[in-house]
């Protein structure tokens, strides 16, 4: 263990000379200015007409401490500069450890959190600046299924009331047809008609999650954010809910943003996958490319950490050291360099750019930049 570290240190000192006298703070300022200019330039671009949802440079910062004058002293960058596109009928899976900002991102897209900066194009319109009143009309098009089915249903309403409320509020069908419509939705979600009069506490976790899904579908949305919909459920029930989500997607041509920390579930349901680490997207691409050829060291480590359900096959694991750093005080340079098995000296100083390696496959890592990866070999 110690010998290894010593060897690493020797290698590092050689590299370090390249960064001797390197001014981190000045470089950071320069970096930020360049990025701000890039964001300004991107703002002028028209939205992609093919995408149902396009997110550009989305940021959500929470202010932790304020000065007496109300100026922010320390901020937590929960989502820091995330961009991606989803086409209609696709499923984008977002994976990452807890605290990496995946839930915050899902909520910011639905404007359940007001984004700090960035653009969100939904069907060609930038909704980032919309007022709550303007959003209200859009709620029929975008919906969310929450993680915990035990706390996201009102305990004093019957299933019928829970499902009929959004239908009435948004005038989806004439008032006399509401019950018929709700019963139809319930049937599609695998709920029996006599559940209409029952209360949430009478149901098991799987049935409750079906109610949550039915509630999201009641307004006939086009885009649904599924925020860890199966992680609170048992394995045998998980499969039921995943199959239900897939069936409904095919019937209604839905677009999903599927947030989960369970890689095998995300692999099963998604067309495209984004890997998040400490508020940034480190890798993004089509499912097959991400799983067959993961580029970022974090993605590699994440995949190798998944337990293998074959007792005779022992896989060599890439074990990450330590915990995810606090997002309130992220490391300089590449945020992953503190745990990265392939970290170079450059990673400690310069934030890697988000570059396209193959068509649609993006990665943010210095290992794939010609400039820096060459340096390592010298």
């Amino acid at each position: 263990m110690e010998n290894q570290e010593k060897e690493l240190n020797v290698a590092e000192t050689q590299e370090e000379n390249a960064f001797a006298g390197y001014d981190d703070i000045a470089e950071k300022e320069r970096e930020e200015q360049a990025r701000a200019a890039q964001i300004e330039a991107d703002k002028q671009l028209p939205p992609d007409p093919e995408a149902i949802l396009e997110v550009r440079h989305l940021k959500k910062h929470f202010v932790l401490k304020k000065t007496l004058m109300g100026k922010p002293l320390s901020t937590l960058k929960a989502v820091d500069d995330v961009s991606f596109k989803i086409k209609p009928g696709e499923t984008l899976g977002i994976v990452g450890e807890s605290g990496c900002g995946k839930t915050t991102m899902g909520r910011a897209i639905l404007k359940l959190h007001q984004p700090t900066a960035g653009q969100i194009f939904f069907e060609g319109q930038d909704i980032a600046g919309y007022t709550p009143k303007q959003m209200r009309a859009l709620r029929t098009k975008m919906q969310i299924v929450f993680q915990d089915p035990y706390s996201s249903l009102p305990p004093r309403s019957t299933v019928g009331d829970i499902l009929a409320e959004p239908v009435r509020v948004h005038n989806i069908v004439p008032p006399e047809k509401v019950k018929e419509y709700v019963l139809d939705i319930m049937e599609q979600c695998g709920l029996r008609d006599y559940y209409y009069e029952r209360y949430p506490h009478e149901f098991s976790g799987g049935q409750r999650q079906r109610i949550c899904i039915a509630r999201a579908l009641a307004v006939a949305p086009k885009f649904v954010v599924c925020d860890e919909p199966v992680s609170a459920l048992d394995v045998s029930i998980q499969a039921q809910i995943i199959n239900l989500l897939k069936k409904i997607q095919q019937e209604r041509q839905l677009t999903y943003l599927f947030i989960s920390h369970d890689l095998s579930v995300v692999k099963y349901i998604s067309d495209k996958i984004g890997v998040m680490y400490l508020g940034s997207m480190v890798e993004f691409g089509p499912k097959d490319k991400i799983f067959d050829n993961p580029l970022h060291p974090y993605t590699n480590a994440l995949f190798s950490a998944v337990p293998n359900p074959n007792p005779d096959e022992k896989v060599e694991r890439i074990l990450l050291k330590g915990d995810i750093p606090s997002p309130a005080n992220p490391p300089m340079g590449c945020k992953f360099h503190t745990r990265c098995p392939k970290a170079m000296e450059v990673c400690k100083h310069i934030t890697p750019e988000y570059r396209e390696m193959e068509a649609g496959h993006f990665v943010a890592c210095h290992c794939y930049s010609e400039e820096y990866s060459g340096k390592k070999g010298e």
Partner: protein
Amino acid sequence: MSVNNEKEKEAVNATKEKKHYLSGKEIREIARANAKEMRRLEKAKNRKAHPSEYTTELKDNNNILEVEGLHSYFFTDQGVVKAVNGVTFNIPANSTVGVVGESGCGKSVTSMSIMRLLQGPSGQIVEGEIRFKVSDFKRDEKGNFIPVYEKDEDGNVIMEPVLDKNGVPKTDKDGQPILKGKQRLDEHGIGVFEQEETVYDIAKMPIKDMYRLRGRQMAMVFQEPMTSLNPVFTIGNQLDEVSLLHVPGATKEFAKKRSIEMLNLVGIAMPERVYASYPHELSGGMRQRVMIAMALAGEPRLIIADEPTTALDVTIQAQILDLFNDLKRKINSSILLITHDLGVIAEMADYVVVMYAGRIIEQGTASEIFHNPMHPYTQGLQKSKPTMKSSEAKLFNIPGNVPNPINMPNYCYFKERCSQCIGKCSGEYPGMVQVSPTHYVACHLYGEKED
């Protein structure tokens, strides 16, 4: 698919006809009957007993723990919940036994029963034996531990004077110094006492005698590290407690040294700093490591890990599982690993026990269970989990839910969700069928040969 749908419909109709609510009168009747039973069991739990009353023999001396016919019930006002309903399994020495099952199948209650931590008076072990091999301290007639004395070449005990607080030898009335045998010290400077191997039936032990076993002979790693650590004491304080309570003659210095050693062992980078910090200052993975360090501090022979990685991320989970495998080699103990994640079991366990609705439905070695699952539930559980390698168009799913734990049917509990039912399934609950020397399954599909 249509078969599944019909079956689901049938199951739903069956529950629909059943009454959903109990009247006040019925609840009172149940409560009265329960109160009588609970009082009897509580009395047995709090009685004083001589060790000979609960000393037994192991059936196979290679085992460290044998559970036989364990029944743990919860007496509620809605009726008796048979959370563990006749569970029998063994833990061989130096091996890992994994218990899998969905929530509510009784896997946690089994582990709580072994630790005798069921919350009374409603939770009780009603029947069954839990035989556990311990190395307990020998006691003299007064109940004191017997020290191991240093001996000289002739086999005589070396005597030394008894010192008072100031280090001055004590004298008796005649002015002669009082002598006592010199106790042998271990490498930490802690006195050694005589120990003997005995087998105790934990299910019959009074709760006060359990204090001797917990921590030193068996220890538990709880599911939620967030709620299992005391927020108002430092990590060091809570860790020291284990050594101070369970190592006779331990001093504070020894306890601190040992705690830091344990924190090092579980891979915490700055043990001195963690030792002085409070639980809220640590991350989830660190807290779980502290929990494991706490369980290891007494060097137990059996570690019960109840979903140790469920609350953690995959990357941290990989670290913790690696740690468990390492520690098993280092301190030579057995692990009872409880989880709902089949992947974790496959990586860790030598033997696997599959539980469903309070009973064991299948047990065998890990490769038997994973390559040749016999019970339809085990098969379904494996097929319904998407894996990193598979790419089927549709996931297999087990229809329906786990049955209500009150009023369990007397036929096979899995019948209503099973896709391979035969006529016999409406009959009695299937018994255990032996398929290979280590592989057992409780299903009528495999019972025919014996008839």
